[in-house]
């Protein structure tokens, strides 16, 4: 499988989280997967301006030519994407959210009926499965995890995906690698 790990850790000081993802990438590599790690902290990704050029002017292409282009290409050519972030104020990082917002060129503006709700139409034939890897903040409780999980499940609907897991970096990287490998 082609696997992209999107590292939304904004903190240079949190080397443990980055290190965890490197271990995860290595484990997946050992299982013969082709793994790319995108360190968002070192990438230039301008926050989405909501101009919709990527839907109505240059379909599939954002007006901003920054590192989100590479991210979009990697995302759509992957079979599995791991979104990774520390929990900050009850949600994944702004760094990760800004990157997610820039993925909308990958879908189509048209609406469709998805089990009685209105969602977007796909632009591509195939989209990757998704897994969410978090590290908790001291106040993280069960409700926070529920809120995050629900929102990511809903985000998956619009990118024709499925949230395969929500895991915390306390879990051995090898076990998370196994969970990905089993897809």
């Amino acid at each position, binding site marked *: 499988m082609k696997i992209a790990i999107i590292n939304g850790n904004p903190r240079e000081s949190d080397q443990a989280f980055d290190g965890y993802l490197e271990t995860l990438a290595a484990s997946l590599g050992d299982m013969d997967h082709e793994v790319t790690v995108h360190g968002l902290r070192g990438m230039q990704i301008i926050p989405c301006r909501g101009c919709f050029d990527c839907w109505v002017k240059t*379909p599939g292409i954002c007006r901003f030519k920054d590192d989100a282009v590479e991210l979009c*290409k990697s995302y759509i050519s992957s079979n599995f994407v791991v979104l990774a972030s520390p929990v900050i104020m009850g949600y994944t990082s702004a760094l990760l959210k800004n990157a*997610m917002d820039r993925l*909308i060129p990958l879908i*189509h503006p048209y609406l469709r*009926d998805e089990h009685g709700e209105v969602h977007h139409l796909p632009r591509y034939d195939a989209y990757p499965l998704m897994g969410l890897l978090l590290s908790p903040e001291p106040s993280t409780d069960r409700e926070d995890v529920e809120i995050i999980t629900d*929102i*990511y499940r809903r985000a998956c609907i619009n990118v024709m995906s499925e949230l395969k897991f929500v895991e915390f970096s306390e879990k051995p990287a090898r076990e998370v690698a196994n969970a990905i490998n089993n897809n």
Partner: protein
Amino acid sequence: MRLTIINGSPRGEASNTGALFSHFIRGFEETSGNRAEVLYIIKNLKTLNVLVDAFRTAEAVLLGFPLYVDTMPGSFKMFLEALEPLAGRDNNPPMGFLIQNGFPETYHNRFAARYMEKFAKRMGCRCFGSILKGGCEGLSIQPAFLTEKYFTYLYEIGKAFGERGVLDERLLEKLAQPEHLTSENIAQVVPFVNKALWDSQLEANGALEKSFDRPYQP
């Protein structure tokens, strides 16, 4: 009451979020002595401290944003993270929310609202509620009979808030209609929106034939 409104739309002043706020403010300021000040995330992305200071000294705060990828825009989350040092402070202002989305149903907003209400708790702020509305993409090109209805509710919600300091549950519920659509409704609405909202813009840009382009096809 002095109300600090923070507009979290990446489109800034020309946003659908801003249009909704303007009608809320019109009602709110009808009560003498009430004053709303509007600040924009997009204008302060590099000076988030300006917004944090406004929050610190506010009497009451109303935060608004459009739904992006099922929750707040990333740029709005930057602001929420900048507020972290104020979390749990004794005298944080009461806060409420306005969340709008472009799908026809309001239901999509419920998850972000749950997050924001938990956020208020995390900050130690009393939460006075959430104004939620679907169907808000392209408000300026929607038929007037639709938008006038939304805007009147926003005005009434703002007026009641200005008078009593609470968001009127009954009005919030009316504004939120339709919470869901029936499958018959969806079958009517979807082709209409695809044509009136999207095809018209694609066509105006000479991009209709390219609408399904796949530039990053692996």
